[in-house]
């Protein structure tokens, strides 16, 4: 991990968000929020309910617009005007609602928007290489521990854990810079949770910046390299996971102790 092949400076954050403001009517969801994503690092984004975690992720992944603030990606200002912009930058997101199409099967969901066309003239008319997509998807799900078995069953007929696995596998398959996971283990059992956490580490080891929201502090301390804490729409603290404790994190979340000046 000495030099990055794209020539970017070592030590520079992949993504920097500065002074993000977002309001919903009277509610101020983000009030000048900062955030950093480092390559090859797992960052946990924590905070109490309503702290603005999901909104921040939506803004950084192009699904919500911000009112004020700045986002720099690999040192350059970017406008995340749509999810496609983020995707083109190599940023993938697992949303809280998973954003799956319930009537489509897992393969279709995994490749949605990125279908592989058949070679030759059939491909020009929009025919797809279903065999290839099926085989690759099968590998991707097996990577996650094969909780997704039947590849032809609509995702809507699957259990909550299987749906979540499909969404996580999709993001992990396509991300090459950053992956945002909004409570990726919320609907999962013990084994699947461990699979997702292992996957997070594997993705990180590829040099990808991983950001995940979680309410489970043991999970956060077990997987994260860094922890960034949000409270009332601002980042109030950043910790190295190795140097912090449960008490400190809870203290920062609830406002019992403030590190960064508000």
């Amino acid at each position: 991990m000495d030099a990055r092949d794209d020539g970017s400076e070592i030590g520079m954050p992949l993504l920097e968000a500065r002074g993000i403001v977002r309001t919903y009517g009277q509610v101020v969801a983000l009030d000048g929020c900062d955030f950093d994503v480092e390559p090859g690092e797992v960052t946990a984004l924590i905070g109490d309910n309503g702290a603005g975690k999901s909104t921040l992720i939506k803004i950084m992944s192009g699904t919500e617009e911000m009112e004020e603030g700045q986002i720099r990606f690999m040192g350059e200002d970017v406008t995340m005007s749509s999810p496609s912009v983020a995707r083109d930058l190599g940023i993938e997101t697992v949303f809280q609602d998973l954003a799956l199409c319930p009537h489509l099967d897992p393969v279709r969901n995994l490749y949605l928007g990125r279908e592989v066309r058949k070679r030759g003239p059939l491909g020009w008319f929009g025919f797809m290489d279903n065999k290839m997509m099926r085989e690759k998807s099968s590998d991707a799900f097996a990577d996650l521990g094969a909780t997704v078995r039947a590849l032809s069953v609509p995702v809507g007929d699957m259990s909550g854990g299987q749906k979540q696995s499909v969404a996580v596998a999709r993001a992990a398959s396509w991300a090459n810079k950053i992956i945002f996971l909004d409570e990726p283990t919320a609907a999962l059992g013990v084994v699947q949770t461990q699979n997702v956490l292992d996957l997070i580490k594997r993705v990180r080891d590829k040099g990808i910046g991983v950001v995940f929201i979680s309410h489970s502090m043991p999970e956060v301390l077990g997987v994260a390299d860094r922890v960034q804490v949000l409270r009332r729409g601002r980042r109030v603290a950043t910790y190295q996971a190795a140097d912090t404790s449960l008490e400190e994190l809870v203290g920062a979340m609830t406002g019992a102790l403030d590190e960064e000046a508000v």
Partner: protein
Amino acid sequence: MTATREAQAEEIVADNNRGVIRSITRAQATQIVLVLLGMMVLFTIINPDAFLSVFNFRSIIVNASIFIILGVGVTFVIVTAGIDLSIGSVLVFASVMSALVMESLGTEGWAIAAVGAVVAVLAGALWGLINGFLIAKANVPAFIVTLGTMGMALGISQVITGGIDLYNVPEVLVDTVGFGDIVWQIPTLAVIALVIAVLGGILLHKTKFGLYTYALGSNMEASRRIGIRVDKQLIWVYIVSGVCAGIGGYLSLALYQQTTIAGNSLTNLAVIAGVVIGGTSLFGGVGTIFGTVIGLLIPVTLRQGFVISGVQAFWQEVVVGIFLIGAVYIDGVRRARARRSSGKNPKPMAIGGLTIGSTRKEGNSE
């Protein structure tokens, strides 16, 4: 580790075959074929000589052909959880435009008939574009947009013609397409309908365009976030529907040798009913062209069967009404079962952009 992973992958592939079979047997289209066959058996028992005649089957498929072409387009629209009420009026508009242009060019001959076909298709596409643009870009519910263009397309047709039907249809068109047979007793009209149904089926079931059509109807918001250009896709879906109505308009010129300005006020509802009977869900994400073809054959077969059996043909409307309600009831039961089995997050029910159930606005949670 690698070995188990490969084993798991194999297991996944094996599971798929079971899934395919299950989805076929569960499909409403399969059940509806049985209904159609049952009807045919019944009418055959009542009056075998009349029902099993070539003349009878020929009438059924000729009468169903134009509806089937319209139904192909409407299937795309309803799969996106949209609705197109304008098809009957667009059919009239396209036939009026086509007849006017052909008349101004001298009416007779294949060249002029070909120009007329192009005009009809373009006229249909134009209304589809208007529908799609208003629905996708101006965010007016599909129900309202197409209700509006339903009145507009018919109104403009009436203004142009003064409400009087046009009779200038090329004889070659009437002879070959309207009454002609490709071979033996196979009507040209039916072959055209079959070709369009097959092309529509390939487009909907085998291509990216069709996949995105399902994706929109399945989860519009997710499709948008995944990066599908939802607006563009919606506009094209309504253009497909408009083009089908345009082709229908042209063929109805050939069949009836005139425009049918006053004769299509209920065409939209008849076609939508057939599409829904064929298993396409008004809630989006579900539907097949095959089901649509069968669903549209049922009303026509019923009417023909009642006539043959000496039952008043008006009963057909009654029975179709029962089938329609039954089809939507079954769809509702199936959706409820799917919701129960998969737990939380029921999809809000929206027909043609009019929200019926509760909607949870995205992005307001924090």
